[in-house]
């Protein structure tokens, strides 16, 4: 084999993958330079879904931006809401009632389960295991989305958080429903694991593929499950605790081999930890107010603020500059997937074409957030 390769002088070819490719999770293009089947270089091309979110954000009032944050990462609208709302609260120094904090945590952790279930389902879809794991994941997601719809009025574009609380209190019948969904979740995760974790085909496709060493991950500012699968113990819920996360007892799973398979395992384990947080939150949630009264025309004081949360995909931050008027002067979104995606060429070099989809799936991107 070696001799053939050295004797034959081959040229590299350039291959376009996307922008319309089933495994790019949206409109995303990769320009791949190939030597035979091996990837020499990869250039991600983003921006097909650019919607001027940041510029629109400067035109909108503070309140009007909340529905727009839903549309960043449309799988986790609740955690996008939370990040933005907390940034404004930090700017205007608004106190949030206790009950609202708990409602927020419940919603955000449910979102994390939804996101990881969908991420794993989509990863398996990309690997060629069409729709069976995806549909099992979606079945569970459907029940959680029903909860969101019950509380906020919409399945995906929730628009539920407000400055100083949440839009409405939980409806009657929400808590029993939540409890039964949370009680059913561990069985669902177990089944998911039985289906996939030991599966030899999946292991062969995922183990040793797309290895991201910790120093490279930190160098590229990766966050979220991608970083933790590289063995770096960095979870913003722990290291820069916000809201009331310090009251809950949960672990941060870490990877040991830094490959695609580890990212899968980390996501599974994070779902279990989210269930733990949910169980504690259901137990502790107090009665009381869910929002504070704000003036109809809301003007925060002058200044700037950055607030970040651990969204299911990584560090989601909002940087706001206020000039004391009704709209933000500057509205900047630090989206986790955009920054996680920059490490893609590094991960893919030296692998085969078929591995690109696995690696891309394991990064877990949503183009709505990458391009904004």
């Amino acid at each position, binding site marked *: 084999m070696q001799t053939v390769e050295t004797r034959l002088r081959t040229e590299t070819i350039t291959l376009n993958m996307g922008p319309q490719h089933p495994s790019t999770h949206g409109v995303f293009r990769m320009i791949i330079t190939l030597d035979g089947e091996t990837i020499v270089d990869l250039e991600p091309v983003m921006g097909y879904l650019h919607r001027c979110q940041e510029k629109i954000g400067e035109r909108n009032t503070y309140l*009007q931006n*909340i*529905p727009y944050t839903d549309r960043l990462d449309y799988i986790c609208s609740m955690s996008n809401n939370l990040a933005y709302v907390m940034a404004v609260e930090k700017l205007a120094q608004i106190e949030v009632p206790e009950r609202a904090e708990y409602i927020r945590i419940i919603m955000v952790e449910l979102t994390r389960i939804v996101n990881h279930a969908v991420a794993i389902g989509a990863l398996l879809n990309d690997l060629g295991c069409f729709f*069976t794991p995806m549909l099992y994941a979606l079945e569970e997601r459907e029940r959680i989305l029903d909860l969101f*719809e019950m509380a906020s009025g919409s399945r995906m574009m929730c628009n539920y958080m407000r400055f100083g609380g949440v839009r*409405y209190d939980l409806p009657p019948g929400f808590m029993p429903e939540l409890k*039964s969904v949370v009680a059913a979740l561990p069985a669902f995760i177990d*089944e998911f694991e039985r289906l996939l974790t030991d599966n030899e*085909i999946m292991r062969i496709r995922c183990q040793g593929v797309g290895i991201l060493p910790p120093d490279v991950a930190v160098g590229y500012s990766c966050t979220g499950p991608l970083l933790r699968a590289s063995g770096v113990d960095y979870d913003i819920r722990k290291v820069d605790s916000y809201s009331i996360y310090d009251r809950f007892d949960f672990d941060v799973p870490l990877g040991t081999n830094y490959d695609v398979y580890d990212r899968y395992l980390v996501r599974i384990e994070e779902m279990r930890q989210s269930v733990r947080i949910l169980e504690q939150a259901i137990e502790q949630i107090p009665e009381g107010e869910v929002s504070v009264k704000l003036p109809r025309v809301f003007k925060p004081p002058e200044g700037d603020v950055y607030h970040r949360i651990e969204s299911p995909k990584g560090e989601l931050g909002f940087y706001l500059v206020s000039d004391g008027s009704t709209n933000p002067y500057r509205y900047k979104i630090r989206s986790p997937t955009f920054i996680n995606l920059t490490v893609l060429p590094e991960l893919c070099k030296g692998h085969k074409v078929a591995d690109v989809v696995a690696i891309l799936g394991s990064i877990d991107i949503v183009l709505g957030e990458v391009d904004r």
Partner: protein
Amino acid sequence: MLGLGILKGLSVTLRHFVETYVSDLKRFPHRYAPQGRARRLRPTERGIFTVQYPEERLEMFPRFRGALMQLTNPETDIPKCTGCGICARFCPVGVIEVVRAEEKRDGQYVPQSYSWDLSACLFCGLCVESCPFGALYHTPEYELSTYGRQKGELIYDLDRLLAWGQKYAPLGTPPVEQEE
């Protein structure tokens, strides 16, 4: 042993497959009978839980954000809306247009025209949230496709919104009313 993991995974899919039929046979009436639907939606239920959409429809939750409606004041029979335009100012995409009529009717301002452009609406609910007169609400209506985008199709005027209101007002509009 190589292949054991695959077999384990296949047992899961096989169980799902068998459950689809068995859990249906075990319990009469049929899953798709009207009485079977409540059972299908329970989280503990195994097997298929899809809703056969055009034949069956899910009931929307009371807070569901569907198409907008304008309420009529039952005592005076004129629209509750005063044409103040606050909803239009709160709308992030500006799809509401309101013009207030010059004269009052029965001592109340009324809108001369009101239009809501469904084609760009985010269904965010900020308009409903902002209306100080409790005139604007969501209906549970979600089948809103049309063949065109002109007035009378995707652009709703006051009369159509009031007609929705006549249809859905008796059902009550719980969430916002409680708070305001």
